[in-house]
């Protein structure tokens, strides 16, 4: 309940904050239509990445099921390869010690998209309000405004951590188109890089009452020779509310771990 109030307050603040940007645009895209038709499908609810294996073909690790975008390695340009090698994660198959990791998450930088889904595989909440779909992440309480009021992306979007998202319905599938990213985030926990040209498309569909699927496609010709992405399955959590997750709470453990690294346990 509290988070819904916060979400509405944030939405209200966003509407007020959007107004000063309007003069730069010839079209009044900042005002959200007060009335809009109800969405063709209801994606609302608290959703958590399923830990269930998609098939019995082999054993899947929890990391693959919930913390990764895909198990296949994307095809990187030389520019991206160099960045990938330089990115040192603290979790996953390429992990290094905390003191050697340069993961921006460790300084509580925003995770960007699609990493916001992946950082700690924590739940998300989807809520409908007129003219938009709100996506709230338990991870550090990020909120995405996915505008569904027919607006286009701004002609020259500001580079932001989480990008500018617009949504269109394709039958019962919400197609979210996001661009306008800065290049300061990692795409995933493994440290795959991206440029400011990153373009993310998510196809979000509620396949049945308790299941949501999100198919993510990443396009970034500067970094990847062809689009790539992954298929994620989410379970409805009807009796969950999003909890408070504050990235800065991890500081205590980081400080202690930094001091103790290298010491042989007794």
């Amino acid at each position, binding site marked *: 309940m509290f988070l819904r109030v916060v979400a509405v307050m944030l939405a209200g603040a966003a509407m007020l904050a959007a107004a000063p940007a309007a003069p730069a645009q010839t079209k009044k895209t900042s005002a959200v239509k007060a009335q809009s038709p109800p969405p063709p499908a209801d994606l609302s609810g608290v959703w958590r990445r399923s830990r269930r294996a998609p098939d019995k073909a082999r054993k899947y690790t*929890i990391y693959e099921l919930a913390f990764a975008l895909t198990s296949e390695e994307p095809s990187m340009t030389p520019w991206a390869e160099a960045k990938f090698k330089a990115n040192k994660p603290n979790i996953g198959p390429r992990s290094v010690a905390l003191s050697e990791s340069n993961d921006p998450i460790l300084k509580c930088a925003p995770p960007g998209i699609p990493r916001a889904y992946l950082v700690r595989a924590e739940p998300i909440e989807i809520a409908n309000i007129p003219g938009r779909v709100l996506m709230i992440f338990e991870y550090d309480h990020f909120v995405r405004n996915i505008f569904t009021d027919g607006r286009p992306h701004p002609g020259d979007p500001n580079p932001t951590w989480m990008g500018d998202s617009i949504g269109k319905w394709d039958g019962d599938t919400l197609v979210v188109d996001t661009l306008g990213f800065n290049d300061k985030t990692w795409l995933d926990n493994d440290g795959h890089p991206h440029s400011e040209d990153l373009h993310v498309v998510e196809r979000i569909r509620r396949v049945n009452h308790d299941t949501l699927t999100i198919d993510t496609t990443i396009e970034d010709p500067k970094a990847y020779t062809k689009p790539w992405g992954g298929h994620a399955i989410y379970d409805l959590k009807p009796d969950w509310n999003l909890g408070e997750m504050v990235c800065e709470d991890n500081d205590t453990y980081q400080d202690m771990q930094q001091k103790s*690294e290298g010491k042989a*346990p007794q």
Partner: protein
Amino acid sequence: MALVICVALLSAPAFAHHGASVYDSTKLTTFKGTVTEFHFMNPHTEIIFDVTGADGKVDKWTGEAPSLTAMSRLGWSKGMFKPGDQLTFVGNAAKSGSHIMRLRKVVFPNGKESVIDRSEDYAE
């Protein structure tokens, strides 16, 4: 000194998930212990308990559990464990011999069990 080492291994699951290999996932260790402290917090919850050996020697152990948020979804709350509570702790002990375990289950005197869902941790 001991506290620093305990926390070094304890902090492993927070970000350095490679630390899950710090615990012996091949076997479970069971202790009857008396709670001395309960830290219900993010990113990890800790129950610190005393274990009295057959020789009468008292050892301090730390049982680590997932975040406050994850555990509250499993029914845990701030007042769940109090100093003096006598419980059975089941978990994966640290390979190094340090007195830390990754909690899998807590059993109450009335036989009721709280099984800890570790699917929050990816290095399972």
